């Protein structure tokens, strides 16, 4: 059953559309990431669900109830803000109890509920501290706990981890994902960090210019991006533009603009002559002898080698077309120098056709 439903929601600021005919349905207990570059409308979408922003058109339903004209304080949403927005005049207990007091809960019950959530997010012993006396990570936990303790129908998070340092961010990612699964919490969170989205979310909605480009499970969004934008935004991608020459048995043969032939997976039923973009991920390109049976093999010229730790990035050109290649075994490419010719190749199933 859908817990949150957006239907044809549009919002413009001073004539500039922020969200355009946006529809979305989130199941109970599901965690959804709204992922996109800044200005793509993801925060506006979250604010529309929370009730801070009134949409120009379309409808929002939370728990099957229409939210038209319902103010934020009657929506039963919990929100974690990017800046945490903790109340500076209240201690941790006061911050956590705020939402429960608003719900008219008896004192004893409030104390019990706060104690539980303090345990849940590992804040024990900090109840009497004030926000300014807490570290960034602790403040983040308080913000999360404050939204969790009211047990909202849907938990909304706006870039919740963007103010933490890299290491803490990775820890909190895993922790939030675990909490969400344990509590079976319906959750929508906004992020521009693809890794964050992939780790936490059951489904990822990739947004661009106020629209959803693709919404699906993280691995599908990565493996089968629907548009060049998605392919570029999630992970790295190499593109080769051209047109379809012939299709046969789920594969298509493409002639690129600079006259090369590429064989690619064609699961969308392309027609001959259609303009397309062939996309291949950097880690799917083999260098040197490689495995046999690669449908696409080219001679490339090395431009540069950069050691990045776990992977080594190899930049080459095939004709004029630049390609990035991710190599896991640095020793195989360390000896390469710029200008050298090498053999590169990839399988047809690793090469997707996208509409330009």
């Amino acid at each position: 059953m859908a817990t949150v439903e957006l239907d044809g929601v549009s919002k413009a600021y001073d004539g500039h559309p922020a969200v355009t005919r946006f529809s979305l349905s989130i199941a109970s207990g599901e965690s959804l990431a709204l992922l996109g570059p800044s200005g793509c409308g993801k925060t506006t979408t979250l604010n529309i669900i929370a009730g801070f922003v009134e949409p120009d058109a379309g409808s929002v339903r939370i728990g099957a109830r229409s939210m038209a004209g319902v103010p934020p304080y009657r929506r039963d949403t919990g929100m974690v803000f990017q800046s945490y927005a903790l109340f500076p005049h209240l201690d941790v207990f006061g911050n956590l109890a705020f939402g429960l007091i608003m719900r008219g809960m008896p004192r004893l019950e409030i104390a019990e509920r706060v104690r539980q959530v303090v345990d849940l997010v590992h804040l024990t012993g900090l109840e009497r501290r004030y926000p300014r006396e807490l570290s960034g990570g602790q403040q983040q936990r308080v913000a999360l706990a404050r939204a969790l303790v009211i047990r909202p129908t849907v938990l909304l998070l706006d870039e919740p981890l963007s103010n933490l340092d890299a290491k803490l961010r990775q820890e909190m990612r895993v922790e939030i994902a675990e909490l969400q699964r344990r509590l079976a919490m319906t959750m929508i969170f906004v992020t521009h960090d693809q890794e964050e989205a992939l780790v936490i979310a059951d489904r990822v909605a990739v947004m661009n210019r106020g629209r959803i480009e693709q919404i699906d499970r993280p691995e599908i969004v990565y493996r089968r991006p629907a548009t060049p934008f998605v392919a570029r935004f999630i992970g790295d991608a190499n593109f080769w533009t051209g047109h379809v020459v012939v299709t046969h048995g789920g594969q298509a043969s493409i002639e690129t603009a600079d006259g090369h032939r590429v064989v690619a997976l064609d699961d969308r039923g392309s027609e001959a002559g259609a303009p397309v973009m062939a996309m291949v991920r950097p880690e799917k390109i083999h260098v040197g002898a490689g495995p046999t049976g690669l449908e696409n093999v080219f001679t490339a010229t090395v431009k540069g080698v950069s050691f990045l730790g776990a992977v080594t990035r190899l930049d080459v050109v095939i004709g004029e077309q630049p390609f990035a290649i991710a190599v896991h075994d640095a020793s195989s490419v360390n000896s390469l120098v710029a200008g050298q010719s090498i053999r590169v190749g990839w399988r047809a199933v690793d090469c997707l056709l996208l509409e330009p």
Partner: protein
Amino acid sequence: MSGARPWAPWMLLAVPVAVFVALFLLPLLNLFALSFVKFDRATGSLGGLTIENYRKFLGDGFYLGILARTLRLAALTTLTTLALGYPVALHLTRCRGRQRAYLTMLVLAPLLVSVVVRSFGWLVILGPNGLVNWVIVRLGLVTDPLRLLYTETAIVVGLAHVFLSFMVLSIATALDRIDSIMVRAAQSLGAPPRQVFFRVILPLSLPGVVAGSLIVFTLGTSAFITPALLGGPRVKVMSYLAYQQTLLLSDWPYGGAIAFILLAVTAASVITYLRALESGRFKVIFR
């Protein structure tokens, strides 16, 4: 700057410090010393050290009554400006651009008029044939004009009129500093507008309320012209009493004692007030 010429900041401060010392601190110390000098009313001569001036004030119900009235009027003025000023400040911070500039000018308008002119204005309005009495008599609320002038009410009205500016600007500054995300956070936790105000906005604006109260209270205890004109000799306050003793009766020692008692009591009130806040429920926002 401080490494090469450590005395440079002091040089820059020297002139204002000299002016302050010469024109304020020295006369004050002189007056303080004078307040312990014996004054002979019959001959008008000074001589001998005494604490009689202080004993005379603190042992006489009449004088203590004037002190109590002074504090009461300052407190009432503070409460009046707070009650009237808070909504104005709240509205001011919600205005933007030109509207806000005009409203700020309106708030500051009383300060543009000389205190004497302003007080005479109130004399006209509050007088037996003034606007207020004219209206309430015509409306039939009273049969005879009320005595509004030369009352404590008149003084509070006159003081509140001008001190309102300080209260509004203090509170508006504090309100401006509150992050608007706080409102959203409270709303997302289920707080309707009333609760947002009383549980978030009001506590977070307390530093402004405190600053405004301190300014209005201290200005209120030491105000002279407004109480003198609107209260007259019948409703005396400390500043008027000190003026009367020094300039009308030439009893400088007693006038000095009155001035220092007012100073000490005002300072003690302010310190007590701040102590109470520092140990109160929202102590954290004053740190």
